């Protein structure tokens, strides 16, 4: 077990190195001088030179690259050019809305999509199966921001059931927080639900044809118990895999959803930083998101061993 974890962590290091290299190259090899952009139109050449020196942009590319890698390895993700605040502090301040949003979307997904997918498989080719599949296609096809705006239009503007936009911390006012959170988390959950329901369905469908399910039925188990106790746990591995891969979907969704509902989270921070060309913040945030993706998939690799005792390394 410990060996497995060590092995997996060791494999994640080169992946993160690749991510760091891509992010670095993306921002350095693009046309246009960042110092010129930051200094603004009215700045004289000495102001531009000062900013360039401040950011280390006057040094050779390789020196910049290894210097930056060294900083990251020491846990220093740089300092925002605009606000002069360390990137990690910026992320920390904006993390709460994002975490609350993402976690509630995951909860909605697991609570709704997994049972729906399982029931769709169990009642294969029935109207409920077709309904779930149709909803899943719709969820994949309608962009999240269009869904978000439709929800705002009908449930907030027309029906006045929910606030239009904004964020309230669940730690200050839980009731208002729930009302503010309902539409964004539903928007974010929809794509994820489409994915998970579909995978659950096909995975359970496959398992339902197995011998042990027939045995469970033959032993006189009620159908409900066969489905939840025998079929679903054995269909868990693909579902968990897809939840891990779906983290990428969730991260993109967070960025869009925070923009639609004006939530002051990490996704909003990223877009603002990109549009303002705050390079250190953009670099730090991309690494941060990649780290989450790699970390979650690492945890899932480890979860396999717990869920499926046959997997050994």
């Amino acid at each position, binding site marked *: 077990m410990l060996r497995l974890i060590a092995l997996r962590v060791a494999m994640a290091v080169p992946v993160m190195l690749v991510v760091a290299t891509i992010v670095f190259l993306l921002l350095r090899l693009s*046309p246009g001088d960042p110092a010129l952009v930051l200094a603004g139109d009215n700045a004289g050449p000495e102001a531009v030179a000062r900013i360039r020196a401040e950011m280390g942009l006057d040094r050779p590319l390789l020196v910049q690259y290894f210097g930056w890698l060294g900083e990251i390895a020491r846990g220093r993700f740089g300092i925002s050019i605009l606000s002069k605040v360390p990137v990690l502090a910026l992320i920390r301040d904006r993390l709460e809305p994002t975490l609350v949003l993402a976690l509630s979307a995951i909860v909605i997904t697991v609570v709704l999509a997994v049972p729906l997918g399982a029931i769709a498989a169990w009642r294969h080719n029935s109207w409920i199966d077709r309904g779930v599949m149709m909803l899943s296609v719709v969820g*994949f*096809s309608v962009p999240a921001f269009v869904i978000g705006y439709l929800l705002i239009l009908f449930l907030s503007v027309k029906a006045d059931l929910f606030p239009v936009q904004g964020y309230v911390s669940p730690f200050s006012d839980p009731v208002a927080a729930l009302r503010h959170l309902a539409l964004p988390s539903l928007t974010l959950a929809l794509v994820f639900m489409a994915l998970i329901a579909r995978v659950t369905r096909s995975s359970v469908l496959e398992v339902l044809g197995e011998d042990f399910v027939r045995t469970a039925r033959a032993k006189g188990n009620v159908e409900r118990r066969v489905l939840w106790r025998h079929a679903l746990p054995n269909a868990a591995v693909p579902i968990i895999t897809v939840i891990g891969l779906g983290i990428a979907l969730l991260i993109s969704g967070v960025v869009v959803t925070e923009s639609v509902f004006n939530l002051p989270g990490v996704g909003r921070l990223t877009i603002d930083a990109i549009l303002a060309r705050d390079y250190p913040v953009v670099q730090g945030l991309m690494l941060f998101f990649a780290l989450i993706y790699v970390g979650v998939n690492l945890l899932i690799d480890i979860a396999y061993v717990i869920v499926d005792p046959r997997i050994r390394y």
Partner: protein
Amino acid sequence: MSATGQARSMPQRGVLLEALLSNRVVLCSSVLLLAIMLSAVFAGLLTGTDTFLIRPRLRLRPPGSEFWFGTDALGRDVFALVLHGGKLSLLVGLLAAVSGAVIGTAIGLVTGYLRWLDPVVMRIMDGMMAIPGILFAVALVSLVGPSLMAIVAAITFAEIPRVTRLVRSVVLSVREESYVRAAEGLGIPPLLVLLRHILPSCIAPLIVQTTYMFAAAILSEAVLGFLGVGFPPDIPSWGNVLAEGRAVFQRAPWTIIAPGLFLAMTVMAVNLLGDGLRDRLDPRLSRAAKVSS
């Protein structure tokens, strides 16, 4: 595997077409997709081009007999914008899907075939997958400027690792087959072995994957537009029409609903077509291939 693999990867064209058209869902989505493509190509004939003029007098008119989908904040006909916008959006989708498929296939073929290269390339692909595609695209386009090439390249980047993994897995499973061994034994150069004997096995899953990438790329263009780094508003695309609607959508929801509906219908038609192709070309090809797109 080899016999069925061959049959699976090289279906008779006539049989395939017949089977596809007998599937009602595939038939409907093909017709819908064709209609949307034609309406985009012939948008000029259908709506004229003077509809993009800024007419402040006609701002934010609701949908009616004069303007089917209403007008936007600049007084432009939303119906015309949506039809014309389809041109750019579909072009981006097509270019990104095809270039993703071509580049990903090239890398996947070589990686799967050369053992020593495999671990290095796969770690690079893992790294590319770990970067959120949309953020990479927004960053790239905002740095380079919203040209067609920049937007297509930004969207393609995120698709490459998926194609590479797909093709590589096929190559790995086919590489040890006796017909590949035989070709190698006859002294056929590796490049020719790859192209003549291994590539055909990749075609079926590639067609399916390219369809899904087409759908995903159209969505990505819209998201880029929505986040403010899409095409400049003087040439309409679904993305920038949606972006324009953002500011006024509470007063004029049709500015979001109309392009959103067209976009969603297109993506849905393409996805359903992909599902149909997948069921026909390879029933075992799991949905997992599409998972993260």
